[in-house]
Structure formats: C-alpha cells, structure tokens
C-alpha cells in the first residue's frame, strides 16, 4: 500500500483507469443514466423545458395517500423487523442458547431473506387468506373469525406482516456479525464497575451497535419501499401503494400523464434517499469514536 516505485506507478496511472472502463460504462448505461433520466424527466415538460408541475402533480390526495401508506408500511416493517431480528440475533449470540440453534437459524435467514416476491405472497395467502390454514384453524378450533375482527391480508397490517418475512431474516444476517463483535471484556468490565445488565446494554452495547442498527433500518426501509412483486401478487391493484401505482402507470399510463410517472419514480428515489441521508447524518453524529 505504501511507497511503490515511482516510475512504474507513473507509467500505469495513465492507463490504470482503463481497467475500470468496462465497469464504469456498464454502471453508467444501466444504473446511473436510467436513474438520471427519470430524475431529469421529473422536472421537464414533454417539450423539454424545466417545470415543477410534475412534482406538484404528486400533491394530489390519492398519490399522497399512496406515499403515506408506503412510508408507513416500510417504516413499520423495517422497525419491527429490526426489533424482532435483533432479539433473535441476540438470542443466538449473547443469549447463551445451545450452539445448535445458531447455524440453522443463520441458514434459514439466508433463505427467507431471499424468499420474497410472488411466492411469498402465495405463502401468506395460503396461510392468512380467507381460506388460509391459520384462518380456518382459528375458526374451527377457537371459533375466531379472523376477517370479522377487521383483519385483512390485503391491507396495511397484512402487507407489513408479510414484509416482515424477509425483513426479520435480513436484520438477523446483518446484525449477527455486529453482535459477535461485542467483546466479552466490555460486558465484564461494565459488570465489575457496578453496572447492571440493563445499564451495560444502554450505555455500552447499544451505543456501539447503534451505527449498524441505523444502517440496517435504512436498508430495510428501502428494501420494502421498493418492493413491487409481493404487494402486487398479494393485492393486485387493490392496495394503492407507490410502487404499485408506478407499476400500473408504466403498464398503462393510468395517471394519464407520462411525466407524472417520472415524478412518481423521482418521489420514490427521494424518499429512500432521505431515509439514507437521515441514516448518514445520525451515524456521523454518533460515530466520533470510530477511526
């Protein structure tokens, strides 16, 4: 890493960037340019002039409601996913469970975090749908009519419950290494200095894990905010969340204005971007102690 011979380094610097060219070209063509195209399109009239009308067009009750429900589903599924995932990861790392529990849970998390999309929706429909297993068992064994209680799988609660199936395992996968990184000496030093377990977690362990927790929360948020397939297969177009609205717009221009579609997509980037900006800001604030 340190001092390399000057002559060859100089000779290669002029050519070194060529090695990155294929990747840069690919990323530009298929990631950055399409995204930029959308962002720019959100601020342009069909004739190509600058306008804020498209973005202003988002501020209609139905679109705002779609954003609001999307944000709520994403936020709650991310937050609950973080909490439950953290509890389960803590159970297998610092919870003194038998060693046999750890490896199967991690493998399963790898599977479940990738078991998203259409099949996941089917699994939940077969379980909590109107003729799903749990719905029927609740009715036959306990006499509880789930759908009479106001529950509906094709709703905010149902969608959040379904998203948790990939959010929790993702949290487990990310936070387990971080929990492993907590040194035993920290907990012992805190104990011998008189701290209770609760004080140790509040003053030492959680502050140390804080950046990881925040980052995962932001990631989980973006993860469910952009998810289309699960919601679409679950609800069709009956639940109006942003990605489904955009999906319908792309397929059939349901909004009747192609540039409103750009604005909608821009709104999605904006929300996930803000989530990540909040994460980075909080991380920078809390992380003076990291080299």
């Amino acid at each position, binding site marked *: 890493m340190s001092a390399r011979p000057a002559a060859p380094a100089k000779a290669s610097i002029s050519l*070194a960037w060529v090695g990155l060219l294929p990747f840069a070209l690919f990323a530009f063509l298929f990631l*950055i340019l399409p995204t930029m195209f*959308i962002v720019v399109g959100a601020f342009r009239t069909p004739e190509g002039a600058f306008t804020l009308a498209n973005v202003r067009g988002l501020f209609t009750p139905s679109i705002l409601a779609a954003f609001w429900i999307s944000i709520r589903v994403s936020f709650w599924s991310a937050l609950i996913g973080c909490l439950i995932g953290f509890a389960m990861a803590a*159970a297998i790392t610092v919870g003194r*469970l038998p060693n046999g529990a750890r490896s199967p849970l991690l493998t399963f998390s790898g599977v479940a975090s990738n078991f998203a999309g259409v099949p996941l929706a089917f699994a939940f*429909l077969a379980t909590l749908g109107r003729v799903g297993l749990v719905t029927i068992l609740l009715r036959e064994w306990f006499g509880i009519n789930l759908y009479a209680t106001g529950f509906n799988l094709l709703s905010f609660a149902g969608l959040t419950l379904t998203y948790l199936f990939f959010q929790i395992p993702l949290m487990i996968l990310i936070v387990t290494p971080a929990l492993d990184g907590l040194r035993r000496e920290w907990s012992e030093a805190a104990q011998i200095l008189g701290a209770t377990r609760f004080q140790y977690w509040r003053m030492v362990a959680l502050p140390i894990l804080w950046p990881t927790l925040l980052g995962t929360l932001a990631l989980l948020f973006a993860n469910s905010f*952009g998810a289309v397939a699960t919601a679409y297969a679950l609800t069709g177009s009956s639940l109006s969340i942003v990605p489904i609205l955009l999906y319908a717009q792309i397929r059939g221009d349901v909004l009747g204005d192609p540039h409103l579609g750009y604005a909608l997509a821009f709104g999605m980037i904006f929300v996930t*971007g803000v989530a*990540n900006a909040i994460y980075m800001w909080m991380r920078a604030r809390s992380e003076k102690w990291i080299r």
Partner: protein
Amino acid sequence: MKGNRFWAWSALIFGLIYFALPLIGMTEFSFRMRRGEYSFDAYRVVLADPNFRATFSYSVTLAVLTIILSVCLTVPTAYWVRLRMPRWRPVIEFVTLLPLVVPPIVIVFGYIRLYNTSSLLPLTGTITGTNALLVAGYTVLSLPYMYRAVDTGLRAIDVQTLTEAAQSLGAGWFTIMTRIILPNVLVAVLSGAFLTFAIVIGEFVLAALLNRPAFGPYMQLIGANRAYEPAALAVISFGITWACMGLIQLVTRFSQATRASR
C-alpha cells in the same frame, strides 16, 4: 442469567412460529386441490404446464447469463481497484450499493424510456435486445451482493504479491485473471452466483415491465387465475431458494475443509 435465557428462548420460539406458519400454510394448501383428501394434484398440474417449463427454463438461462456477466464485470474491477486504484474504492462501492437504494422499478422505468425504439440504442425494439436489457438489469440487481462477495474474497489474499509473482514468471493479464485471481476467489464468486440465481429465478418487476416470459410473471399470472397451483409454485420456489443457500454453505464449508487440511 436465567431470565436472560428465558428471553432468548422466547424470542427464538416466537420467531420460529412466525416463520413456520406461512411455510406450513403454503405446503398444506398445495396439497388441498383434490376435495376431501391431500394429493399432489397441484404439483402435477403445474409441472405438466408447458408454460411452466418454458418460463422456468427461460429464467434459468437468464440467471446463468447474468452470473457470467456479473462475474466478468465485478472480478476484474474489484481486483483492479485493490491493485491499482485503492482510492477509488469508496466510489465503486457506493455505485455497487446504489441498487439497494434506487428501487428496481425505477431503474426498469428508466430502461423503458431510455432504450425505446425511438432512442439511440433501441434495445427494446428486438427480442434479443430486450433479453440483453433484462440481463443487464439483473446484473445491476446482483451488483451489491456480487461485488461485496468478490471484494471480501480478494481481501483474504495478497493481490499485490500474487500479481507481482505471476508477472515475474511472465504471465499476462488474462492468465493472471483466469489462473490466479479467479481460482482464489472462486468460493466468493460461487456464493455470489448462487445468490444471484435465487434472486433472478423469481424476479418479477423487471421481466413483467419488459414483457419477457420469465418465471416471476408466470407465477403472478397463475396466482391471479388459479387457487391451489400458486401454493405449489411457492413450495417449489422455496425449495429452489433453499437449494441455492444450501449450495453456498456447501461450497464455503468444502473450501474451509480443504484449506484446513493443507
């Protein structure tokens, strides 16, 4: 300490129930096709459907192509960044993580508008072009996982020394890449590849919006029109995902075993 363990068990058991119920539910449902008794009818119907075979093999083909493209892009790039351009690492890493922030539906929306028939690069005009675009899109989706895996693999070996040693023996870049670097990060590449496979096989939004007959849209279509077959499909894709993750574990464990025996 006892209370501690009680909470650990509660968290674990609560989680396991939550995860087990949908899996049991979909499996049970998939057997319910014949009235009054459990049967494999739903699976029989699904597997006999020519559309199932066509879309499934289409998705498998695309997954393989995606893996090839992804490996060709990430391995040399990650290697080159470690060897010559360490200062660019944060930038490259940021780019590879972007697909986690920019929703896939936005990316594919950009494709549709950018590469339509009236653009400079009218990829969506032909079937081959659309397929290529789909592979490119899947490669973008796989970037965060693939690049991370390869970069972690490269961290474990001394890229600098290996390269200089190979060069001193007269090896060219192609030889270094295929004979030295790739074998050394093979485990990482395979892990990334299986993960990519699992993602591509069931992917829905890109294929649906580009109108390609992939497995994801097929499943969605079945789901909208049939009752029991979707559950059977869910069981099948869960099996595929599990197989992919199992292969990752197998490869990792195998490599650890060979490394330990050396």
